[in-house]
């Protein structure tokens, strides 16, 4: 699974994310919710983001949002 994530999932996400703040550009969109939760699980349950600094920074940007913290209270 780690190999699959590193070689297939992460490059696609990186490519879409680029240097922008969110996956869809500079503004937060619902796609970030969709993708962000999967990344959250990948990071907190499986530690898959260790080698992906950019994705990790992106995830932490999402986790800083008040709505995220309200929805996942106690799970961070």
């Amino acid at each position, binding site marked *: *699974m780690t190999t*699959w*994530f590193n070689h*297939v*999932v992460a490059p*696609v*996400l990186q490519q*879409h994310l680029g240097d922008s703040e969110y996956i*869809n*550009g*500079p*503004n*937060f*969109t*619902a*796609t970030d*919710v*969709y*993708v*962000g*939760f*999967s*990344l959250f*699980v*990948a990071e907190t*349950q*499986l530690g898959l983001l260790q080698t992906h600094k950019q994705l990790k920074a992106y995830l932490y940007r999402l986790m800083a*949002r*008040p*709505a*995220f913290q*309200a*929805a*996942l*209270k*106690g*799970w961070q």
Partner: protein
Amino acid sequence: MATGISVKDRRYFLTVYNNCFVGSDAVTWLVQNTHAQSRKEAVLLGRAMVKWGFIRHVEGDHTLKDMTLWYHFTNKKLGASAAGISPTETASTANNGSNSSSTASLSSISTSNLNTVRSRASMVSFAPSSSSNSASLNNLSSSLSMSNLASLASMAARSASQPIQTPARMTPSAEVVSSYRALAQVGAMQQSKSTNDLHAAAAGAAASASASASASASTPRFVPPVIGGVTATSRDIAPFLLWHIPGSRSSRVLWLAYELDVAVEVTPMKPEHLKRPEYLAINPNGSVPAARHGDLPLWEGGAIMEYLLKFAALDTAKFESKSTPGAPPSPASPLQPPEWTQVNWARHQMYSYWSIVTLDEKLFGFGSSRLTNSTSASYALV
């Protein structure tokens, strides 16, 4: 309502907002004048008024909230439908800061608003196709939508006809009382905070499902009326119910609901509750998230998220101020993600997204058995 609450110019740093009122004042007024039994109910009514364009946040950033946020009464929708206001009168509302003249023109606005609401109410009353089964929840909720619309209409009527000098306490009309009695019954059925209450909710959902099945056999499907681009249904006023296991995939839906500022009522669940018959009546897949908005049952996170986005998109106040007419939606618009998802994301879904999702399912030990037919049906619904 325009006469009952304090409408005046307010200043926020250097910007002055003319003739606005405070959100929590409006909520207080709705409760004090028995249009709503609780502040929560009043907020739902207020949100419907925002959605239909009768009131509007000064910057268009918020729906009605029980907070110190500022709102205008608006005559925006009337230009097309009623055309009852002369430009000079509107101009005096905009320029004159004094309370008496502004409330006078505001009440004339709500007179024409009333016609709009009435026409909506009458259209809706023809629309629901519920069966002759008078005891069913389905009937209850459709009659609820009618009587709630009627109560909005009567509310506007009383606001308009009331003399400006005497903002006396009003007595509720029979239809308002009956609508809230119905609301209380539905509320009792739907507010299932504990697992024991889940039985009641499941029974209600099952009754509704069987009722709608029998209804669809005999009568045509319910088609909600669309007026001025806004679909009027009982869902305008209904809370959004979500069955949620904390930390699971349903968190995604909850997160989006919070981002979109949708009034959501959460029923916390545990994984061992999923396969119980009372929950299977709510979601035959036996998985979270499951949701119910008014008379519409929803399951599958992706479908619920799409529904939430569409529902929030109807919340016109959220978008109109931010984008110029005719221009494509701004990048900040929540309308963009589904498009983007369909065009760009779908290509990569099989390789990137689902690999995480299947893992996610194994992790939490559910979601393996799917009723594909009902699942695709739930997507077709939204």
